[in-house]
Each structure stands twice: as C-alpha cells, then as structure tokens.
C-alpha cells in the first residue's frame, strides 16, 4: 500500500510509477470475479490459475488479474488473455493448465473455449469483435475489466482520482456544477432529474451542514447494473462522490448499500479504507484543505428504501417510510439538512465528465438524454449480462445485435424496463430509441436499468400479477391508496389468472390505476400501476383470452393449463416418472410412451423440466 498523498503532485507521481509497473509487457490473464460468475465457479478457476502458474513455473512470467464483472455474464466464467485480447468463456478449472501451456506459452487459440456468435454461428477470437461488445460504448463499465476492484493501485494506475485532483485544484465548486449541468447528466436511478441542477439547489440551500449520499439500494428485481459497477469499480463511485461533496459543500457522505449484495458491500468497504489511508478521504484531501468522510450503511431488504426520503429515514435508524416531498430533500433531507442523493451510476459518470469535459460528454446520446446507460439485459435472451450503450440506441439493437436475440429460437414478445415502476413494451416498439423521454412516452420508464426480455412463453397477465404481488409485499403501508389499491389490483389479477375474471375487470384495473397514480404518497404507489397499464395497452388480447376464453395463451397460469404427453416423441425412458412428486405418470414399459393421469397432476412442471426430448406438452 502506497503512503499518504499530500498533494496533487504526489498523486501524479504515484500514478506514473504505478502505470510504469503495469506496462511490463508480460502476458496478462484477466479472470472475472463478479457476482454472476460465482454460480459458475469463477473462484475455483482463479484458484486453479494460481496453483497452475506456480506448477508450470510461470508465476513471475505472467500477470494474473481478478476483476469485477465483464458483462457477458451468461457465458461466465470469463477469461481474457493479453496480448491478443483473446476471449475465453465458460472456463472450467480443468481448462486452466491448457490455457497456460497452449495459449500463454505457445500462442495457440483453444477453439472450444471461444465465443460463438448466436446469430451467425461462427467462432470469435477477440473480445472487441464479439457482437455483444461491438455496439456497446463502455465509458463507465469499461474499466471493470482493467482493474482489480480491491486494489486502489490499479485504479490510480489507469488515471483514477485525477478528476478529483482536477476538481480540487483547477475548478471552483461553481465551475464543477456548471460543468455537470452543461454535460446534461440526468439521474440514473430512475426519474432522470438533471444532476447539476440538483447539486446547485443543494449548494444554495441554507445551512452549514450538508450531506451527499450514494443510493446503492438497487431494489428493482432483475436489475444489477449498480451491483456490477459498485463491486467492479468502487473507486469510480467514491471519486464521483468526493467531487460532488466538494461542489455542494458537504463534509459527510453516506453509501447506502443493499445487504443482498455482499460483494459490492465488501468492495466498497475496502475502497473506502484504502482511499482514507491514501488521504483521498478524511481531513485536508490531497492538501487541498477540503475535508470529507464517508460512512457505509446497509439496507435491510426493503424496496421502498430506494426512494430518497425512505432511504434517508432508514439512514437515521428509523423504518424506511417515505414522506411527502413538498419540501425537497436538497433543502431538508437527512436529519432535516440539505442532502443530495444520487444513484451509483450517476456518481460514476462524474469523474468521466470532469476529466473529458462536458462538451465531449454531450456528443453521446440524444437531445434530452446525454451519455451512456448501463442496462442489465436479462430474461429470455441469448447474451444475458450488463451492457452499456449510448442513449438513443433502438431497443432492437440492444436485444438482437448485442443480446443475440431470443433463446431457443423462440419469438420475442415484450421487454420490460424500469422495474416494478416501469412497463412492458411490445414488438411494435422495438425501434424506439432508448432514452428517458421516449421510454416514459411509451408508458414505461428508464428506472435503474433493468431490461427483462420476454418471449412467447411469458404470460403478460402473470407478469403484471408478479409485479403487483411484489409491490403489495413491499408497500410500506403508510398511505391508503398504495396499501389498499395495490392489494385490490393484485386480487383482481389473481382472479383473472385463475379463470375467475369477468369483463368489467379491465375497466376496474384502469380506474384503480388512475387513483393510485394521483393519490399515492411516493413514487412506489404512483408508478405501481405501470406494469398493469402497459400490459393492458399492448397485450389486451391476452387479458381477454384469460377472461373470456379461460385460456392462458403462454401456458403459464396454472389454473388454466394442463400437461400432456406427446406420444410420438416419448421413448418411455421414465425420467418424468421418477421426477413426478404425485406419481401421476406411469411407465408402460420400454419404448412405449408413458401415461399421465391428469386427475393426480398438480401442474408442478417437474416432468416438463426433466424431459429434454420435448415429449411433455402444456397448453
């Protein structure tokens, strides 16, 4: 660990020294150690590299770097070899000796570990040529693959904290705010409020003590963009926060992290301690005279705590209940003092803007939405993972060019953005440019960047019910419209999915939606109807099939479907017989199709999952 930095010159000298150390010319192996790679066993792959490097006598000849999320999570664990930018996917510990002996020592490519383009079916060697990465603009996420997130040396070596030095020594707080305003940066947490304006209001709010807060309570189910950023590049968030604190005039900051993100929590904690030791946090930062400390608070698994006033209540040690915002939090927030709260990704954009300038930043994106946006591209899509794209890119390019299209050759049905506050967009809107305003116009929203792709086997009524069930559980209960309204809406949807719906239900759902939007205390209730409104708007035929024909076209709603054996496909192997918890399937002997007794079937889907021959049907 380097010693404390007392000036801008100290930082520059250290950066030079560390950058020189990196350019050794040795081969470099980068292994993804992100959260999504863990279920695939990346920890074992890393261990295997460590062992094998010493076994093959390569430990001093090769650099090994464990990093945060590389993005293409579907194909983890990911290993990238330099020089050559060779991209290996789904690497197992058993592949490690060969990677060293073949690729590192002899320079040979291992064909079976290469990425296959799901559209063309051809193999791709270099990372930058993989369609998933090609159309992305990884301004913020890009450094994830270049650094070990728990080494501040790595971050400084690639120019980390130079934006902070620039802000502290070359800019006044007013100039910083002006720069952020001019950049057009809008809050990445969902609502898209202009960041510079928020900072300015907070700076001008009366009061000597002010706070800055990182909202890392990414509660949207299906969104993990903030997780990937906070665990993969925690110093970039911290650097943005310190710059913001200086611009606003705050001396105390908070990072509110979800407890469900253990890796992000561990890495931001490490980053904080390192920054403190180096004098990038604490008293007299880099000798500038500016003092700033940061505390980390953990959430407790409440979705509503992503809302600013609820989060601040939670920071005060109270339950996370929101309050009405007739007085803005930039004037009276945490402990009733002026407080600026921004999302992880917003903070992370700040150093980039300060370093490269607002004019450069403005060249990316659309008129109303500048820069890039990170999305968690998940669901029924081939290349699931974290993607960063310029604002304004059409949905189609994200889903087909980057995402590689729908899994198993199925048909696209909808894409859900904005989490439980957002909506489902149909195929007819695939050419919609993705930015704050266009998504809102279509009835959805940007949210914190969840993008969940759904195919023909996803039931849109079930999806609406899913979100309402989620929100019913997560409603804090403080205001009646949300507490009771969401519950009633969920009950109506429940009836529809059970075949008990009637024709007035759609109208009733729409009327309840309007009431919730108008009268809820916070955004959780006000936006709760969005998944219902958009599914009714774009997929009314599915609602009608459930209500009028008592049929679930996607084959999801249990009460409306039945399972059956497709006799010509069934070889009588008996796997489903063993899997069935109800003994509803009987074997009729070898090479004879099994028989399913529907009266015993509980529609659990175990037979459907276990049969790889597609001999179990459902409708």
């Amino acid at each position, binding site marked *: 660990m380097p010693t404390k930095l007392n000036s801008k010159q100290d930082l520059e000298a250290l950066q030079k020294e560390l950058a020189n150390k990196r350019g050794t010319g040795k081969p470099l192996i980068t292994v993804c150690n992100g959260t999504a790679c863990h*279920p695939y066993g990346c920890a074992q792959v890393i261990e295997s590299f460590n062992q094998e490097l010493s076994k093959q006598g390569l430990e001093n000849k090769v650099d090994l770097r464990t990093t945060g999320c590389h993005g293409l999570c579907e194909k983890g664990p990911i290993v990238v070899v330099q020089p050559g930018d060779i991209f290996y996917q789904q690497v197992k510990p058993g592949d490690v000796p060969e990677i060293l002996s073949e690729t590192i020592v002899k320079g040979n490519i291992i064909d079976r570990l290469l990425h296959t383009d799901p559209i063309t079916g051809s193999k791709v060697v270099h990372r930058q040529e993989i369609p998933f990465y090609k159309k992305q603009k990884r301004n913020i996420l890009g450094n994830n693959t270049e650094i070990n997130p728990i080494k501040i040396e790595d971050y400084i070596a690639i120019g980390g904290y130079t934006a902070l030095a620039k802000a502290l020594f070359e800019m006044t707080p007013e100039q910083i705010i002006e720069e952020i305003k001019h950049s057009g940066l809008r809050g990445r947490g969902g609502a898209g409020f202009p960041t510079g304006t928020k900072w300015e209001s907070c700076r001008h709010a009366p009061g000597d003590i002010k706070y800055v807060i990182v909202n890392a309570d990414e509660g949207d189910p*299906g969104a993990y963009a903030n997780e990937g950023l906070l665990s993969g590049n925690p110093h970039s968030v911290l650097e943005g926060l310190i710059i913001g604190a200086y611009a606003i005039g705050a001396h105390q900051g908070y990072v509110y992290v979800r407890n469900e993100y253990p*890796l992000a929590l561990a890495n931001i904690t490490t980053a904080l301690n390192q920054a403190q030791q180096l004098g990038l946090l604490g008293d007299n930062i880099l000798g500038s005279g500016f003092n700033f400390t940061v505390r980390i608070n953990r959430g*407790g698994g409440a979705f509503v705590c992503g809302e600013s006033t609820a989060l601040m209540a939670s920071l005060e*040690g109270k339950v996370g209940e929101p309050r009405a915002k007739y007085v803005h939090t930039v004037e009276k927030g945490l402990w009733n003092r002026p407080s600026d709260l921004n999302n992880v990704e917003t903070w992370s954009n700040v150093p980039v803007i300060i370093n490269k300038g607002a004019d450069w930043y403005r060249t990316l994106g659309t008129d109303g939405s500048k820069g890039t946006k990170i999305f968690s591209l998940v669901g029924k899509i081939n290349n699931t993972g974290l993607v960063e794209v310029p604002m304004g890119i059409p949905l189609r390019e994200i889903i087909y060019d980057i995402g590689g299209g729908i899994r198993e050759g199925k048909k696209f049905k909808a894409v859900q953005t904005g989490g439980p506050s957002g909506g489902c967009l149909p195929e007819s809107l695939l050419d919609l440019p993705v930015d704050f305003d266009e998504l809102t116009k279509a009835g959805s929203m940007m949210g914190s960047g969840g993008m969940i792709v759904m195919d023909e086997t996803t039931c849109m009524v079930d999806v609406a019910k*899913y979100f309402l069930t*989620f929100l019913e*559980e997560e409603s804090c209960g403080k205001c009646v419209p949300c507490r009771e309204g969401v519950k009633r809406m969920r009950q109506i949807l429940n009836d529809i999915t059970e075949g008990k719906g009637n024709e007035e239900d759609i109208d009733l759902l729409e009327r309840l939606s309007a009431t919730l939007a108008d009268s809820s205390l916070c955004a959780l209730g006000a936006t709760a109807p969005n998944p219902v409104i958009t599914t009714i708007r774009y997929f009314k035929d599915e609602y009608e099939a459930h209500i009028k024909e008592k049929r679930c076209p996607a084959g999801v709603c249990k009460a409306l479907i039945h399972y059956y054996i497709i006799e010509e496909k069934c070889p009588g192997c008996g796997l489903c017989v063993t899997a069935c918890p109800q003994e509803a399937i009987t074997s009729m002997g070898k090479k004879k199709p099994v028989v399913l007794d529907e009266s015993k079937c509980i529609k*659990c889907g175990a037979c459907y999952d276990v049969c790889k021959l597609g001999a179990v049907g459902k409708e």
Partner: protein
Amino acid sequence: MTMDKKVSAIINKYEGDRSQLVSILQDIQAEYYYLPQKTLIQVSETMAIPASRVYDVATFFRAFSLEPRGKHLINVCQGTACHVRGAARVLEQLERSLCVKRGETTKDRKFTLETVNCMGCCAVGPAVKIDGDYFGQMSTDKVDNILTKF
C-alpha cells in the same frame, strides 16, 4: 462470549450510533441467524432507543427474522429475470422437497427456506443461494441434487 457481551461488542463497534441501527441488527442476526428478543431489548436499553422503535425496524425489513432459523439459509431469488425463467416452479419444488412453506424452517432445523427479491445475478437465473454458495440456471430437476450437498 455470552449473548449480552457479544451484543455490547457489536454496539460498540458502531460507537452506539443510532443511525446504524439497521447495521447493528444485521450483525446480531449474522451471529445468531435471527434476532433473539433479549438482544432487541438490550439494543433498546443500551442505545436509548424505545423498544417499540427497535421492534418497528426489526419487523419492517424483510432481511430480519424474529424466529430462530435453520443451520442453512436457502434464498430463492424471485426477481423478474428469475421469474420469467421459472423461479416460482423452483420455489415450489424446494417447498415439496423440504416439506416447508416459504419462510419456514424444516423440523430438523437444517434448512430455512426464504425468498429474496434480487441477488444481482439476474443473468444466470433462476438463482438460488444457500448460505454463501450461488446456484444458477436452476430447474426443478436440479433441486434435490443441490440439497444433498448440505
């Protein structure tokens, strides 16, 4: 260390800062796998926070449990990405295999089955986490096999 000494140590770690109540309760739960009543009373008395407020916080956040939990905690992700890939069926299979409902603990106190809204590994859903181990791309037929590892 006795329970009250452990709780004191946790409170001291946060210098008794009332704003750290959630973190303090998280640490106590990490120690005992749930929040024993005695510890909540101790937190209330030591930190001069009304017991009603401590109870309020302990019951508001879904991460906290006032009931003893099993040796292994199973978290079944019910996030949107996991949901569209069949997370509900995985949960039902776990309920059948363990003979408990969501939120309950098995009779032998070996497993507690809980759900979580998102664990941040949406790309590999449906995801299940048992203690610190993550399992991705789950399906009903993989459930029993995974349980035998514990």
